């Protein structure tokens, strides 16, 4: 439905209608979500307004072709660029409406510097160096990891363990009703429907109760160099998430964030493994948790976060990125999500103290801080939780 006829396959006619369609294609090239029906609306609009008035023309096009605030802010510049034909390239785009995750860091420490520059685009290898933590990586990209170095049977175990551990956090009584046995409110609709069979005497009573369903699960797994020691645990953990249902989104990060949801949910085990190793370039690189979270909040936050989302972060908290950025992004995450569970391989040690600065900064925003260095410890945690929940 998203499609507008393609440039190549279908030559667009001359005249104003043709220009409008070309403009829609131009917007789509610039990343707008342009709907076919929107273009139709615009063409219908044009009969009704005075197209000689530039602002009306702009407003009509905008009403039909824009569908979000970010697009709204970019539209005037692109409109100008297209209809003025001075050049096909748009003028420098105005900043998008401010979102919380975009706010540059006011603190003048090193992390602040990184985060304020993060609001710009980071592209090209030359620019990458300034991002702390990226350069620090003895192994990154030099040797490709052998991801298959774990016991395949562990995946089954991980599936069971994860399901058991995470379900108590996820289960959610919605405000919708479903049929239920002898509890909850009376389901009058059914009662009335049935009672007409018995000459209007409601012999049988039916009930409806609040529906239960799992919350969305977002998993952010750290695969940086410091997590290397737990490699035999991390891979089964990630792959085991395929047992947690269709509402699970999985991301892995080291210096940047990559979604592996598709690989985990749709592909066979071997295909998933090869795909993940191909798509995660900096496996065992340095860690920038703050930047990974920033990326998540910016690109996926609006879609995935909400009161019905449980966020699980698997990381040891060794972070080489900016402290201030991490704090800000954790705060944003904490505000939006239902709860945050942090699984830390180091936390199993009774002498463990969150000393590394990444963990110290993040801890106030974490709802549940749990140890996880192996499937066995995860199983123990699961047992405790289900006992507490029950």
């Amino acid at each position, binding site marked *: *439905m*998203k499609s507008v006829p393609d440039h190549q396959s279908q030559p667009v006619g001359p005249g104003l209608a043709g220009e409008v369609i070309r403009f829609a294609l131009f917007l789509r090239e610039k990343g707008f*979500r342009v*709907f076919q*029906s*929107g273009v139709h*609306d615009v063409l*219908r*609009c044009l009969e*009704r*307004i005075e197209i000689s008035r530039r*602002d*009306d023309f*702009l*407003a*009509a096009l*905008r*009403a*039909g072709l*824009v*569908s*979000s*605030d970010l697009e*709204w802010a970019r539209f005037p510049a692109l409109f100008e660029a297209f209809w003025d034909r001075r050049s096909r390239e748009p003028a420098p785009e105005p900043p998008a*409406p401010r979102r919380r995750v975009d*706010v540059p860091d006011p603190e003048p420490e090193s992390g602040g510097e990184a985060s304020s520059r993060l609001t710009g685009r980071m592209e090209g290898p030359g620019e990458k160096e300034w991002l702390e933590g990226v350069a620090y990586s003895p192994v990154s990209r030099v040797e490709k990891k052998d991801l298959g170095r774990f016991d395949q049977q562990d995946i089954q175990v991980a599936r069971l363990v994860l399901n058991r551990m995470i379900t108590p956090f996820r289960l959610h009584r*919605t*405000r*919708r*009703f479903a049929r239920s046995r002898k509890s909850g409110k009376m389901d*009058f*609709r059914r*009662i*009335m429907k049935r*009672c*007409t*069979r018995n*000459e*209007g005497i*409601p012999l049988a009573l039916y009930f409806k109760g609040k529906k239960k369903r799992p919350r969305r699960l977002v998993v952010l797994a750290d695969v940086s160099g410091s997590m290397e020691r737990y490699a035999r645990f991390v891979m089964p953990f990630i792959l085991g998430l395929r047992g947690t249902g269709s509402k699970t989104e999985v991301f892995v990060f080291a210096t940047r964030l990559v979604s592996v949801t598709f690989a985990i949910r749709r592909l066979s085990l071997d295909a998933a493994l090869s795909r993940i190793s191909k798509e995660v370039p900096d496996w065992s690189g340095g860690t920038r948790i703050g930047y990974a979270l920033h990326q998540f909040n910016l690109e996926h936050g*609006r*879609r995935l976060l*909400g009161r019905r989302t449980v966020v699980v972060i698997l990381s040891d908290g060794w972070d080489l990125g900016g402290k201030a950025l991490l704090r800000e992004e954790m705060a944003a995450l904490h505000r939006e999500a239902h709860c945050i569970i942090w699984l830390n391989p180091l936390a199993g040690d009774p002498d463990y103290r969150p000393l590394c600065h990444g963990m110290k900064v993040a801890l106030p925003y974490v709802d549940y801080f749990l140890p996880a260095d192996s499937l066995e410890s995860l199983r123990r945690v699961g047992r405790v939780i289900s006992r507490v929940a029950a």
Partner: protein
Amino acid sequence: MSAHFESIDQVMTELARERYIADRSLATVLFLARCLEKPVFLEGEPGVGKTEVAVVMSRLFDTELIRLQCYEGLDAASALYEWDYPRQLLQIRMQEQDGLDRERMERTIYSRRFLIKRPLLEAILGSDGNPPVLLIDEIDRSDEEFEAFLLEVLADFQVTIPEIGTLKAADRPLVVVTSNRTRDVHDALKRRCLYHWIDYPSFDKEYRIVMARIPGIEKTFARRITAFMQALRGEDFLKRPGISETLDWARALMAMHVDHLDADVVAASIGCILKYREDIRKFREEIWADPEKRAACLRGPAEGSGGRTSIQS
């Protein structure tokens, strides 16, 4: 009032007559929504007058405003229709004496008399002659199930009730959907609407709104208030104040019989503008304590911008 607009200018003047100051692009969208019979999807920060659009439009058309406030778990029974069960039971008891057959009884208790109309059904059935304005408020608070359900209603303006049949609107009502953008609304819903983003107003526009909405306010005082709010909006708060806060504040100051802004007045009434403890603390510590920023807030409008605002009487 005619249910159709002739031109965009007419929309603007009529909105202004109803004391709603809109910029031309919003007027264009409303004009087109009327022509194309499409819903309007309004997004914007809280308190910029999204809901008010629907209220004013219903006054313009001299028609009923049907409001549906969204919340999580909102379902067909509370948005569309429900059967009146107690009355149905009573009816059955009454008919029992007459000894009517089952089919007849079913026909009776599932007739329109026993139907409780909820907002959406009311908008569909009440559309003969002068269609109402349907306001679907804060769609982002509802859940995905309701959003999907709404698609069907907004697409055809018809509903199917199994016991009765399909009901269809004769004339389509004007639909205004608002969202505070706490979550993304699905593309399928946006695709069926005309989109408009309402931003915080410029100084000029806000001044005109204050003058239009607060009767008896003095021009220079209104300008002062507007300038203060504009300066405040430049700061980074958890919740930046909207126009509704401006109007609340202006009304509060009028009630306090104040006609100038000074430190005491602002400190006493800051609760009208900022609604978070953190924001108020930030205001006290960072803005109010800083003499330069404080002066900037109280200075009043910059020269030149005030000159063009002598439109309202």
